[in-house]
């Protein structure tokens, strides 16, 4: 894993600079990628990682500088060209067509055709199925994308890129929604590809992953290249320091020892759709409650059912001791419940809205003055959040479309915080958020709990639920299989309840 | 009134060509203008403006008033919506010639060169009734144009005439008839359906020669021989030709000819050059010149057929 390769770089960016309407987001980036290595790319939210990748893939054109392959400069005008040059991309945001099926999406732009120039559906179906299986995700390839959970979409997105058999594979935060199990499978696969000579660029905010899988790591900060290091020469701590430019230590705040005894929300035997079979749990005042489980175990469904976003076919929800009938999200909000969806793109932000418009979307009522929106207050309050969450934005008036993934996530979080909820359900709250910001968000969740607000954290990062929560429910196949507390919160216990198999513990480090 | 140097401004406002007959109107209007320009170069300035709806016709009249027209020749889409604006331009001194459809207000002075919808219906009905009686035919079907005022006038007159002979049975019962939208295609598909619905049809009245073409096509394609008479209306060139050539089904048509717009424009230029008096303008009611609807059959068709006409 450590041996250094010589010879020309298989891919090199030379003095790449990128400006968006005068704002410089990449500044003179020169990075060489060696053939057959896994290069980690890391940096805070908005550091410019995705922008750099998009330039390599021809989606953006650099303001100045060039990209060369095997030592020769190439002009990559669009993704079509990049693909032809053997570059495949797993984008940060999903690029799947909701109305098409899994296999149709996987082969989109890359169809297998018969001698008569017709689609060879049979072959595509079976190859798609095989590819997914290799990723440890035996998904029905005939399902429509719109019926998939976020994690499943992520798998499809990865498989789609893998099917291209490209020489250079670029993955922009492929692991954000995957649980440990799937991540491990993905890593196995990446190692195998590497053995076959595939060059991989890997973006992640999880330092552990970088350390585990990469050969070298490139750190970006504020659009500038900070360092390129052999992974052996650097530890997680150093990476973090280079990323944020100062020392960085403790991630999780100290757990709250005891919460109030009164149960603020309880669910009894919830059943919904085909997925949710039997879910019961209690949430106490000021508690940070965790939900763990494998992909597709029904955690998101549970949250959406409580929010009235999915029909409740049986069971009962009680808020503050009163049985409630939540028909839609409005009812839930009126009861003081908030829900940050895991699907930021499809269910979270409005791409064309600017920061204030996105943040005040739910709490807009409070900004009314004589029935009209008081835009001054709206802007003021939003600026407060921008400061509080450290949102990197060129302008408050810019559509969220142009924001980096992590910053979009922060805006989305701010929207829910602004509703002053008494119960906040956070589904993958730190999805795509850098370590530093993660810490801020953890601290923030804590301060919410301190104020007596109850939080439910659904996360695929076991570390996150374990570090944050005082109690954890584990789900499996639409049922709650266990409730862990205190000393029982260990990875072994969680995995046991999530899979039903004893001892399957994931630790890549 | 002889104008000095500046040309006399004449505005012509007509419906746009949305079926054959209105197409004829556009053609005859342009022909009149071209003829006059050729005969008397530089004397007149024309605006021929088409409108696809009553409201856009109101606009057009307003716009031409601003342009400074002194004479207005108008074939209203519908009478009621155009009446106020026409009355207004008249009161500001513009000489007005209303073609075909009269206005709903008849308390001011203008020339109404009227086509006679009622007569078209009456002539058609009378001819058809007599023909059917003579041949011992009893069954007929009828088609209207569109549900608009002039159509109602025609059909009412037609049925009044037909109902004078109680031996005739309108298969669709009373005044309930279908609309063919003055379109060949609609006439075709409607006739196809009629031919399915009724085992025996002796005669067809479809009120319009464009529709008639579709009706004939449907009869031809069906291979049915029971239909003995097909009567359209308005007098298109194609139908005149059929009458002349002795078509077995098409033996007559009642005129309602788009060349009436030409008469109107000529009337206006004649008033403008002083050949005709403009007394009508100050009268308290319109001067009506009715262009009679003539029944054209083999006996007189030669007088009406004009090969270079578009309609």
């Amino acid at each position: 894993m450590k041996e250094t390769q010589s010879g020309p770089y298989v891919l090199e960016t030379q003095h790449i600079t990128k400006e968006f309407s005068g704002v410089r987001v990449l500044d003179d980036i020169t990075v060489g990628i060696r053939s057959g290595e896994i290069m980690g790319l890391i940096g805070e939210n908005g550091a410019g990682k995705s922008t750099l990748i998009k330039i390599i893939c021809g989606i953006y054109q650099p303001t100045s500088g060039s990209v060369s392959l095997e030592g020769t400069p190439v002009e990559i005008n669009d993704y079509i060209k990049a693909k032809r040059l053997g570059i495949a991309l797993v984008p940060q945001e999903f690029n799947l067509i909701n109305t098409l099926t899994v296999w149709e999406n996987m082969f989109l732009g890359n169809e297998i055709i018969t001698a008569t120039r017709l689609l060879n559906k049979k072959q595509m179906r079976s190859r798609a199925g095989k590819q997914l299986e290799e990723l440890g995700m035996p998904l029905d390839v005939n399902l429509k994308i719109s019926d998939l959970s976020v994690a499943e979409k992520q798998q499809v997105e990865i498989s789609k890129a893998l099917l291209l058999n490209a020489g250079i594979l670029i993955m922009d935060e492929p692991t954000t929604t995957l649980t440990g199990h799937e991540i491990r499978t993905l890593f196995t696969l990446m190692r195998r590809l590497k053995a076959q000579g595939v060059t991989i660029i890997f973006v992640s905010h999880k330092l552990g992953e970088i350390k585990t899988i990469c050969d070298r790591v490139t750190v970006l900060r504020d659009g500038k290249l900070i360092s390129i290091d052999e992974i052996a020469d650097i530890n997680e701590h150093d990476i973090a320091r280079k990323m944020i430019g100062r020392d960085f230590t403790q991630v999780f705040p100290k757990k709250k020892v005891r919460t109030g005894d009164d149960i603020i929300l309880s669910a009894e035997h919830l059943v919904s759709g085909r997925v949710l079979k039997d879910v019961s749990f209690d949430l106490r005042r000021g508690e940070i409650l965790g939900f763990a489980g494998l992909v597709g175990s029904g955690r998101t469904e549970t949250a959406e059912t409580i929010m009235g976003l999915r029909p409740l076919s049986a069971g009962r929800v009680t808020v503050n001791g009163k049985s409630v009938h939540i028909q839609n999200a409005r009812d839930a909000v009126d009861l003081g419940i908030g829900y940050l969806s895991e699907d930021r793109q499809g269910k979270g932000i409005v791409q064309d809205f600017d920061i204030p418009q996105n943040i005040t979307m739910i709490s807009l009522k409070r900004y009314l003055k004589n029935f009209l929106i008081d835009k001054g207050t709206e802007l003021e309050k939003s600026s407060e959040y921008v400061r509080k969450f450290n949102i990197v934005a060129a302008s408050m008036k810019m559509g969220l479309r142009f924001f980096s993934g992590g910053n979009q996530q922060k805006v989305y979080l701010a929207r829910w915080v602004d509703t002053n909820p008494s119960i906040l359900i956070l589904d993958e709250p730190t999805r795509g958020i850098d370590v530093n910001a993660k810490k801020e968000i953890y601290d923030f969740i804590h301060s919410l709990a301190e104020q007596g607000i109850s939080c439910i954290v659904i996360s695929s990062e076991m570390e996150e639920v374990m570090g944050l929560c005082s109690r954890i429910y584990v789900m499996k196949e639409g049922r709650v299989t266990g409730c862990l507390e205190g000393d029982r919160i260990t990875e072994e216990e969680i995995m046991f309840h999530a899979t039903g198999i004893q001892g399957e513990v994931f630790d890549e480090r | 009134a002889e104008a000095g140097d500046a040309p006399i401004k004449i505005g012509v406002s007509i419906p746009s060509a949305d079926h054959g007959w209105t197409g004829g109107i556009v053609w005859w209007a342009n022909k009149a203008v071209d003829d006059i320009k050729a005969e008397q170069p530089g004397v007149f300035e024309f605006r021929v403006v088409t409108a696809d709806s009553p409201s856009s016709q109101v606009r057009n009249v307003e716009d031409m008033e601003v342009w400074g027209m002194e004479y207005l020749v108008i074939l209203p889409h519908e009478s009621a919506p155009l009446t106020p604006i026409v009355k207004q331009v008249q009161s500001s001194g513009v000489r007005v010639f209303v073609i075909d459809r009269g206005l709903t207000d008849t308390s001011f002075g203008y020339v109404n060169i009227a086509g006679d919808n009622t007569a078209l219906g009456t002539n058609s009905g009378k001819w058809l009734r007599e023909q059917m009686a003579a041949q011992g035919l009893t069954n007929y079907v009828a088609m209207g144009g569109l549900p608009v005022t002039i159509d109602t006038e025609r059909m009412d007159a037609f049925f009044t005439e037909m109902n004078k002979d109680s031996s005739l049975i309108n298969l669709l019962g009373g005044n309930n008839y279908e609309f063919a939208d003055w379109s060949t295609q609609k006439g075709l598909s409607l006739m196809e359906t009629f031919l399915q619905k009724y085992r025996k049809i002796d005669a067809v009245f479809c009120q319009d020669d464009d529709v008639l073409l579709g009706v004939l096509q449907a009869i031809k394609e069906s291979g049915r021989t029971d239909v003995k008479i097909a009567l359209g209306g308005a007098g298109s060139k194609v139908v005149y030709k059929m009458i002349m050539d002795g078509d077995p089904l098409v033996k007559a048509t009642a005129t309602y000819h788009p060349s009436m717009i030409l008469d109107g424009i000529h009337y206006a230029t004649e008033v403008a050059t002083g050949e005709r008096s403009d007394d009508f303008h100050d009268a308290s009611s319109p001067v009506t010149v009715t262009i009679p609807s003539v029944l054209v059959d083999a006996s007189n068709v030669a007088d009406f057929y004009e090969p270079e006409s578009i309609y």
Partner: protein
Amino acid sequence: MNDNTITHDNRSLWSLIVRAVKGFRFSEHSTGMAFIILFLLAIIVGWPNFLRIRNLVNILRQISYTGIIGLGMTMVIISGGIDLSVGSMTAFVGGITIFFLNLFPGDSHMAVLAAGLFAVLFGAFSGLFNGLLVTKGRIAPFIATLGTMSIFRSLIQYFSGAGNILSENTFYPEVGAGSVLGLPVPVWMFFIIAAILHIVLNNTRFGRYICAVGANEQVARYSAVQVLKIRLIPYIITGATVGVTALLWSSRLNSINSSDCIYYELDAIAAVVIGGTAMTGGKGTVIGTVLGAIMLGMINNMLVLGGVSSYLQQAAKGLVIIAAVLLQYNKKN
């Protein structure tokens, strides 16, 4: 307008102007640019009549009927829908309003007032019908309103026996044919409704939500927006604007014909789209629609004033519309 414009201490007029010019984003004001170019063109083509006050007022009155409906249509289109039935609906509401007016014996201003209220309410009610088909019935707006387009037209033809419906109230024309301070009543209504809907769109919760729903229904639903309600109301608003136009048009003529107001939907939609509102929903402006409607009126006007061949008038109109939209080229991405 632009947040990160550097604030100068020097607040001289000159610096203000410089700042305004620099801050002016051409891509965002492309409708305005198209408007100015078209206006200049109209001055040339329609010289010297175009610039007469009388002509300009005429244009405004001419476009106000479909313009008012276009304002409501803007809301519908931003919310992700469309309403093809507005033309027939205008004739229908106008006709029923006259029936209603004729219920009152004798001439009375009260009756006219009642009829005015009735028209708006009945229009809103008809719009509600469209809206329910689209929201509760879950029928694609295009097809639902294509259906109601036939239905409204058919009903008014039936009620009127395919002819005219005449009002018996001699005060009625005061509404539609009247003027206030030199501007015709329809023009006033157009501007007033535009101002109201501009505020509704930009400064109310409802306005914010229709943009959200039009941009991404799913996101809106997850953000506690009552999507069905938000999609429904624009149809009611459009119905109300149809009611206003029906009132203005029928009272101007003191009658309505069953074939009136044909093609209104095309003019209204064209105004909205020329005004820069995206057919796909999610964003748009009321001011754009006002400009779009006026541009359409100017095109028509200059074709007549300029004396374009009657055969080619339609073609010229089509070309100018396309050109006007082409001028807004930059707008798209």
